[in-house]
């Protein structure tokens, strides 16, 4: 056995190593195995598969959107049908109404004398009148001035409250927003508590004070507490606190007086809130029932909202027109200020 020199050993090792590396057979990749035609085939299949998948996804999404649309549509129909129904039926002639709905008003809750008697007849729900007439409106507007008086009563109550409350609230909430000391915050908190109180609580004090001031059974008994209600202050303060102090500082540097800051900066910045609040307040007071019931004992001083509930069988001929007429002002206001309303509501809930 010949003795390996160091040199030989190294050379042998090196060549062995080289052999190891050169002799590993590399697996061909998935693509390299294919020839061109197979590749084409593969690409084609892949393309079909991906379009199919995309289409399935699209269909799934379409179905989901469809279901969503159906649900939202159903909700919208439920929301809008009573309104449409009232308006459309207000163009029916009185005999037609009596024919269609007479049974209902003979059996209004509490007046059922003989249930079996009515079983044979069910009311016909008719969206479109057979004969479109303006009879109801004619009767309402020209034959029964009573209704017009009630309508006028409603306006006389609501407009002063809304205007007054907005004026007082904008001043007060500016003060709450700018001057923040401990005692003010406590007062503001008590305003919030007051705002949250239901009528059941506040009506008693209202009644007491109206009695003391001798304004019971006059519109003032409703208007004055309405003007000083704290709802608008709560929301407006929330808004005014969002005005960056930098604006106010800048105005001060330019020599604006406090009144100018209020009228030229604070109020314009809160424009959408003021519009939204005006709409909300209008609706709320246009809708009121509790206060007039308790604070106004004379029937002819009461607003239309209370009166509409007392429509009886003899008057159903004009009931739909009266209801429709009563909802026209708020709906018009809604059409005019929807954007403001939505923005105002949206920002009131977000901190």
């Amino acid at each position, binding site marked *: 056995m010949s003795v390996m020199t160091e040199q030989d050993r190294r050379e042998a090792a090196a060549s062995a190593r080289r052999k190891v590396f050169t002799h590993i057979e590399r697996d061909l990749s998935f693509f390299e195995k294919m020839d061109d035609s197979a590749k084409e085939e593969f690409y084609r299949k892949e393309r079909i598969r991906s379009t199919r998948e995309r289409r399935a996804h699209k269909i799934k999404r379409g179905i989901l959107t469809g279901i969503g649309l159906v649900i939202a549509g159903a909700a919208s129909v439920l929301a809008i049908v*009573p309104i449409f129904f009232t308006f459309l039926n207000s163009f029916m002639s009185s005999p037609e109404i009596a024919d269609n709905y007479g049974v209902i008003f003979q059996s209004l809750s509490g007046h059922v004398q003989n249930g079996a008697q009515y079983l044979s007849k069910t009311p016909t729900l008719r969206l479109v009148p057979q004969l479109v007439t303006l009879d109801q409106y004619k009767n309402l507007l020209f034959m029964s001035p009573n209704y017009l008086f009630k309508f006028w009563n409603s306006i006389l109550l609501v407009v002063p409250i809304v205007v007054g409350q907005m004026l007082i609230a904008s001043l007060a909430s500016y003060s709450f927003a700018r001057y923040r000391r401990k005692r003010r915050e406590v007062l503001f908190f008590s305003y919030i508590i007051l705002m949250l109180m239901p009528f059941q609580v506040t009506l008693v004090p209202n009644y007491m004070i109206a009695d003391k001031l001798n304004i019971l059974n006059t519109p003032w008994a409703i208007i004055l507490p309405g003007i000083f209600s704290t709802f608008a202050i709560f929301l407006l303060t929330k808004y005014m606190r969002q005005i960056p102090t930098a604006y106010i500082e800048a105005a001060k540097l330019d020599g604006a007086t406090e009144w100018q800051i209020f009228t030229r900066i604070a109020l314009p910045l809160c424009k959408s809130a003021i519009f939204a609040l005006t709409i909300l307040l209008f609706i709320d007071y246009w809708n009121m029932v509790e206060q007039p019931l308790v604070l106004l004992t004379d029937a002819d001083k009461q607003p239309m909202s209370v009166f509409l509930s007392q429509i009886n069988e003899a008057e159903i001929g004009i009931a739909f027109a009266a209801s429709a007429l009563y909802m026209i002002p708020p709906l018009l206001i809604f059409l005019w200020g929807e954007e403001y309303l939505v923005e105002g509501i949206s920002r009131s809930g977000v901190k």
Partner: protein
Amino acid sequence: MPAEDQESLLKLKADKARSRRRRKLADWALFTGYLTPSFLGVLVFFFLPLLMILKTSFQKSSTNTDFIGFTNYERVLTNNAFVSASKNTLTFAALAVPLAVLLALLLAMLLNSGLPGKSIFRSILLNPMMVPVASIVLIWQVFFSFNGVINGWSYNLFGLDKLDWLESDYSQVVILILFLWKNLGYNMVLFLAALNNIPSEILESAMMDGAGAFKRFFAIKMHYLAPTIFFVAIMSLINSFKIFREVYLLTGDHPYDNLYMLQHFMNNAFTHLDYSKLSSGAIIMCVVMILIVGILFFTESKFDSDVEE
């Protein structure tokens, strides 16, 4: 020389302090001036009368000012009408508030999920809010009265017996439908705003991390929605206490037992001019209301701090 310097410095400081004080006073006077009209009105029409009724609630009657302790409260709390009225009012709130919150949230999420025509749906769903209840009562009567449309349908289609909805155990359901019809739109707009306020980057990064729709909803969206949920709950609660309006317009002074609300109780007391009963009733409700709102606020702040940690 240094002594003089110090003196003038002190004088300057005193001047500055005085002018600062004066400015503070001017500020106070100005903003108090802005607040005064409202404060006086609230004082005269709410705070003072509330104190008055607090006093009356401990008196025998409004004319006889003998102090009789909690007798009036006892009288009110043991009054059957008051107990059933508060039970009905609370039952209705317990039904109406969760439903109003949940359904409105679902609707808002539906509209926010990339549905076409979102703003149209929003407008339509907001419409009922604008309609005075008095105008819509007629329709509810057409549908739910004894010879109404619903009974007609159920009779013709299923041969079911007619049911006088407003005079049955389901009467609260009828009112509940009216309540939801009217309030869902408002609540939904509030939720839509809150959903839009959720930063989309966070949702996207959660999606990258493999969070599913449910996980994303409960872990992320709920956190951002929590304040709005509380706000909506409080607003719905207030509105649910106002439900007397609907009940009165639908059923008049003497509704079915289920629908006898606190306001009916108060109205009856008004017609009998029973001031001490009225006062103690109002005070009890005031306390309960403060408790409920306090608990809601407390849970909100607790919940908020929990989430932030």
